[in-house]
């Protein structure tokens, strides 16, 4: 955790001395292993964004960014090894990209004083900043995703789901079980019937589950899957002739690699998103010029504009904004790990800010605070157009039912606090 600070002149344009300081950003990606299919585009976006910052702007506030990419293969032990090997370099924020690794790292980063950002995954109750001082999961998490999805369905059904039947097809792991409690509460509130259908890892075989769906004919199927489970589910849904427009996956079940293998029959499949996708953003011109054409692209350069690529681009953007905010607050360009946490807690993303950096309307406007590390919890719905080969947003950013979710977050975080003797902060 040693961190060299440049002398006095906190002026970030330190051209006088050879730059010893840099902003270290570790990147725990998985380009191999069972989820490599999703992991490869996910790994590219973050790295490309930071390369762009270095090439075009000379870093953030004049201090170059150093990316430490570490391959975890979605494996928890390798995640620990990656964490231990990079933390001494002065890492500012960790993106574990895996719910398992996130749970692992939560106590460790808290003890070591480093920030952790699990955007849209990980431990949902970490949104309670009073208990989880170092953990952030803005702008949305699994419980708000489930609620936003239900709100979308409410809108589709003129505000009432009474008597409707919704099936949750979930990956039989901690990740897949996340929305269950929220959906059970919502089913009591809105009076729809909820059926829970688990799929065993890896989800290569879903015949029984889809036969059950075909028999019971739910009105909607919500999918909480990842990896091969998604591709197989979409194919099986097409096989049993389940109407694709009633099939909604969460944001880890709605990328190009999930729908393309099924071909044209996947047309109409919907997915929750927390950020927009596509290559229409202004930043892509810069990425093309400074990164891809200069031969510095992280991967093969063929994932630009895909859903996962954009998501990690968004992650990088939010990290960039947090560093800028931290630099503003502390007045130095070479921020420390504690400064990074302050920056993240003071984060305020506005539409103007997103447009300024070439990512206009990539996500909702929101701000983070000491108590709320989870952001506004907004989710939108996008739909796959197989003939055009593109995802299109078909709804605005829907709010989640925070009145229902907040007590759940409180209960879960208080249980964690009790087990680990953590007292509340931000008071």
């Amino acid at each position, binding site marked *: 955790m040693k961190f060299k600070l440049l002398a006095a002149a906190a002026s970030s344009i330190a051209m006088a001395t050879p730059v010893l300081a840099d902003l270290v950003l570790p990147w725990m990606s998985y380009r191999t292993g069972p989820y490599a299919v999703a992991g490869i585009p996910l790994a590219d976006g973050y790295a490309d964004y930071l390369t762009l910052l270095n090439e075009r702007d000379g870093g953030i506030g004049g201090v170059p960014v150093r990316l430490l990419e570490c391959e975890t293969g979605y494996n928890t032990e390798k995640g620990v090894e990656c964490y231990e090997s990079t933390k001494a370099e002065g890492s500012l924020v960790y993106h574990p990209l895996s719910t398992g690794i996130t749970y692992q790292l939560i106590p460790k980063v808290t003890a070591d004083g480093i920030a952790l950002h699990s955007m849209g995954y990980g431990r949902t109750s970490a949104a309670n900043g009073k208990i989880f001082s170092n953990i952030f999961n803005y702008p949305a998490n699994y419980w708000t995703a489930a609620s936003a999805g239900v709100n979308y369905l409410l809108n589709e059904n003129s505000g009432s789901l009474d008597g409707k039947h919704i099936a949750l097809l979930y990956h039989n792991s901690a990740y897949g079980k996340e929305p269950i409690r929220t959906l059970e509460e919502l089913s009591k509130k809105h009076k729809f019937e909820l059926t829970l259908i688990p799929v065993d890892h*890896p989800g290569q075989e879903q015949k*029984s589950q889809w*036969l059950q769906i075909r028999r019971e004919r739910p009105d909607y199927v919500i999918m909480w899957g990842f990896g091969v489970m998604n591709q197989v589910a979409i*194919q099986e849904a*097409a*096989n049993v*002739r389940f109407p694709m427009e009633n099939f909604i996956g969460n944001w880890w079940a709605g990328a190009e690699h999930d729908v*393309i293998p099924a071909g044209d*029959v996947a047309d109409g499949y919907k997915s929750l998103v927390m950020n927009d996708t596509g290559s229409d953003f202004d930043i892509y011109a810069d990425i093309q010029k400074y990164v891809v054409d200069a031969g510095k692209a992280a991967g*093969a350069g063929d994932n630009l504009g895909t859903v996962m690529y954009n998501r990690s681009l968004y992650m990088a953007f939010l990290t960039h904004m947090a560093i800028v905010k931290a630099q503003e607050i502390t007045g130095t360009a070479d921020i420390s790990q504690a400064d990074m946490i302050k920056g993240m807690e003071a984060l305020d993303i506005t539409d103007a800010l997103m447009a300024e950096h070439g990512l206009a309307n990539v996500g909702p406007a929101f701000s983070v605070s000491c108590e709320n590390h989870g952001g506004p919890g907004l989710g939108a719905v996008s739909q796959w157009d197989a003939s055009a080969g593109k995802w299109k947003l078909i709804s605005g950013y829907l709010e989640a039912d925070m009145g229902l979710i907040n007590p759940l977050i409180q209960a879960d975080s208080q249980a964690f606090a009790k087990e680990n003797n953590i007292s509340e902060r931000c008071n």
Partner: protein
Amino acid sequence: MPEQVIFGMEVFLNGLMAGVLYALVALGFVLIYKASGIFNYAQGVMALFSAMTLVGMMNGQVPFSHLINAVFGTDIHHFGWHLPALIGILLTMAIMVLLAWLVQKIIFKHLVNQEPIILFMATIGLAYFMEGFGDLMWGGEIKKLDVGIPQGINLWIDEATYNIFDYGFFIDNLDIFATIVAAILVLALVAFSQYTKQGRAMRAVADDHQAALSVGVSLNFIWVMVWSLAGFVALVAGIMWGTKSGVQFSLSLIALKALPVLMLGGFTSIPGAIVGGLIIGVGEKMFEFLVGPLIGGATENWFAYVLALLFLVFRPQGLFGEKIIERV
């Protein structure tokens, strides 16, 4: 007829089809175990590798493109051609034969007469190696496999059953195709081993290596042949499963589905693989249908093993396996 019975029949038929797909994977194991006593852990990875090679050939991918680009700084990905499925399959078969020859020459020739667990370990090492090699050669992204196999609900059966039972059964076209292919494959393999010279030689080697050697059978040739056959079976299994879910790493996990089939049917019997597959397929689907909702679902993984275990308790060598005769 009560609804549950009709649903039960549908699940039963689908279980049979699923069992056929498992049996396809199990066949590869049986072939190798029968001829050389090696439990080939790498069978699943072979299925993945052969499927990746087929897709790579069909799409005209440059092998090792990632490595070449990283070392030489070039940016090549595809040759630009597209091969028809049949040619792709023939070329992939040639590569699997080459692989069988290499495996025999480099690994198993040196491990003759070792204990079964050492040979098993060697196949594990082979599995690791081929996994890394396959990813390096063709890349880890998901690839769509399309050799023209029809997919989707079979409308004819749907209508016919609807007319009889007032509920249309769902039978996937792919499953029907796979059943036909598996039947042809098993018949061909049985005919091969019964009626051709090489087949008889294979059975001789399976029975007793030394006696086979003494009558002039070339062990090396038989083993390469058996591994090639297993490679072919792996390719067929890889095509069937790859068409369902795309070609990616998880394809190698289908080997785990074949293990209960092997347990039940016996490691050394080809008809045992089929019968075992059918029993496991039906058993796990019916259990999931009947008992699953009561205990929370997702029981398929372990129930197949428990079912096989129950059979083993009564017949420790599997239904059709060779009786283990121990001499003191």
